[in-house]
């Protein structure tokens, strides 16, 4: 490049460079609480409370080890169970429903869609009292299956809307061709449609997993010692809060890790899921 060309491109490139630096700074600022959480998780408690905050310390795995001595396992197993089973249930209910709303639509499809989304707008606080009382009467308090049922209901509307939007993308010609070739419904579903909506299924599952794994309100009100999930394990640190920051940071890191990793891997699907299929 000649000197003249550089001189012309100079100011423009410099402002683009400045914008890039600015973007990086904002990105790091946003990420900083997460970064600090992870750093703190590798500290000894004494290093976690320093004024000014310290970056120089001997890293340790002591906190993570202590978590499992403190009985973190059952909480993680409960979360894993409630998240996995509710997500599978959601898919089992939502996929046929989405089929009935997209491929061979029932009458009043709009009303049904409206109903599903309106349940999502129903504030949870409006139903928690009867759910608590009913669960108490049938002996379902502190039972992880109660969470499974509620998480399924919580994610079902999102999943129906998402799966419908994915199913609608299957071109009519493909289904016509399958019918012409004499494919049975079963074959059409498994061999033709499933491969086409597999990414959609994955995206839907991801969204359900995020919301179920992170859920706190039902868990804190309906569980105690037996069925408590990971967020409750974290809340357990609040009693002694101010004393065990490193321990708390390790727990928070571990609790967030599964969803963060899944979300990082599936960033593309995330947008579509969060907009319930509206944004492609």
């Amino acid at each position, binding site marked *: 490049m000649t000197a003249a060309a550089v001189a012309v491109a100079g100011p423009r490139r410099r402002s683009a460079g400045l914008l890039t630096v600015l973007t990086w700074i904002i*990105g790091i600022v946003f990420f900083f609480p997460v970064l600090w959480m992870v750093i703190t998780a590798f500290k000894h408690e004494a290093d976690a409370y320093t004024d000014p905050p310290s970056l120089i310390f001997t890293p340790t795995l002591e906190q993570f080890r202590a978590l499992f001595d403190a009985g973190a396992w059952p909480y993680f197993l409960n979360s894993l169970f409630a998240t996995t089973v509710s997500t599978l249930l959601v898919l089992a209910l939502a996929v046929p429903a989405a089929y009935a709303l997209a491929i061979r639509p029932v009458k009043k499809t709009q009303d049904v869609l409206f109903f599903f989304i309106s349940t999502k707008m129903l504030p949870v*606080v409006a139903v928690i009292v009867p759910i608590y009382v009913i669960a108490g009467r049938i002996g379902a308090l502190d039972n992880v299956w109660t969470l499974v049922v509620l998480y399924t209901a919580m994610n079902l509307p999102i999943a129906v809307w998402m799966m419908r939007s994915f199913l609608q993308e299957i071109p009519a010609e493909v289904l016509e061709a399958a019918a012409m070739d004499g494919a049975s419904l079963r074959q059409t579903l498994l061999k033709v449609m499933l491969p086409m909506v597999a990414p959609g299924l994955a995206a839907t599952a991801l969204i359900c997993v995020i919301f179920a794994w992170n859920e706190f309100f039902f868990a804190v009100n309906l569980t105690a010692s037996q069925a408590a999930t990971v967020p409750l394990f974290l809340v357990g640190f609040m009693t002694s809060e101010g004393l065990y920051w490193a321990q708390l940071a390790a727990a928070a890191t571990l609790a967030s890790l599964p969803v963060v990793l899944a979300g990082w891997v599936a960033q593309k699907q995330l947008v579509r899921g969060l907009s319930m299929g509206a944004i492609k």
Partner: protein
Amino acid sequence: MSTDVATTAVPRPAVPAREPVRSARREGWRRRAPLLPALVFAILVTQIPFLVTLWYSLNSWNLVRPGSERFVGLSNYADVFADRVFRQAALNTIVITAGCVIVAMLLGVALALLLDRKFVGRSVVRTLIITPFLIMPVAGALVWKTTMLDPLFGIVNFVLSPFGAGDYDWTSSAPLISVIAALVWQWTPFMTLLVLAGLQSQGRDVLEAAQVDGAGAARTFRSITLPHLRRYIELGVLLGAIYVVNTFDQIYIMTQGGPGTASSNLPFYIYQRAFLGFDVGQAAAMGVVVVIGTIVVATLALRLLFRSFVQEDR
């Protein structure tokens, strides 16, 4: 397009002419069958409890006093509207929701514009920015309350110390701002992702044409990009508001609704009445009032939502 698929993809079996009504009905049920499990499940788990809430709201009932249940008509509602704390919680709910959604959306638009350029490490920065949304909200709230906002050892006061922040106690002196800050941190990524998707769906040719016509960056943004983004911004505000209205985790962890009731929102206050005061009737009545309020706002919002989603189907 979808009706099309139904009739061509699955040829109707030849039907004897004398039973057209019955077979049409059977066809109707065949179509409905896959929908029913989800529909019945949703009705059972969400609508039935709400009907029970309606019934409870007409009763005076304290959980710790068995047998105290009796029908009192609308007196719970009278109490709710006379309750000063309820009104404050309602106001706080509005402040928290509006504050969080507006600030997160403004930041989201700015960040999306910054991310919608080619630069070194773009996908890395995008990954950094979406992470707060993926962090478990309880974990995020704990991190904010302790390592970020702690008066003595928190990072925020450390960063602000040149400006004389001293040992300002954020969560007790500015509880609403602290809660909103944690919420904005969590929800900005959501808004950024939605707006970024909007920016990327913009036709490059239109932008180039604007440039050729001599429109400056500001002009192009105002007359082309912003109208195009409108749908995405509406969607983000609406979906964000649905979730943020129900905020519970951050308040439970960062302020416990305090000091006093200064940062209590409706979900937290109803939780207190139900699970700390065991006052089923009152809590139920508040729940019903919240639902009515939500319905008013949601009806407006749903119209909007349907305009963005369903219109494009046909």
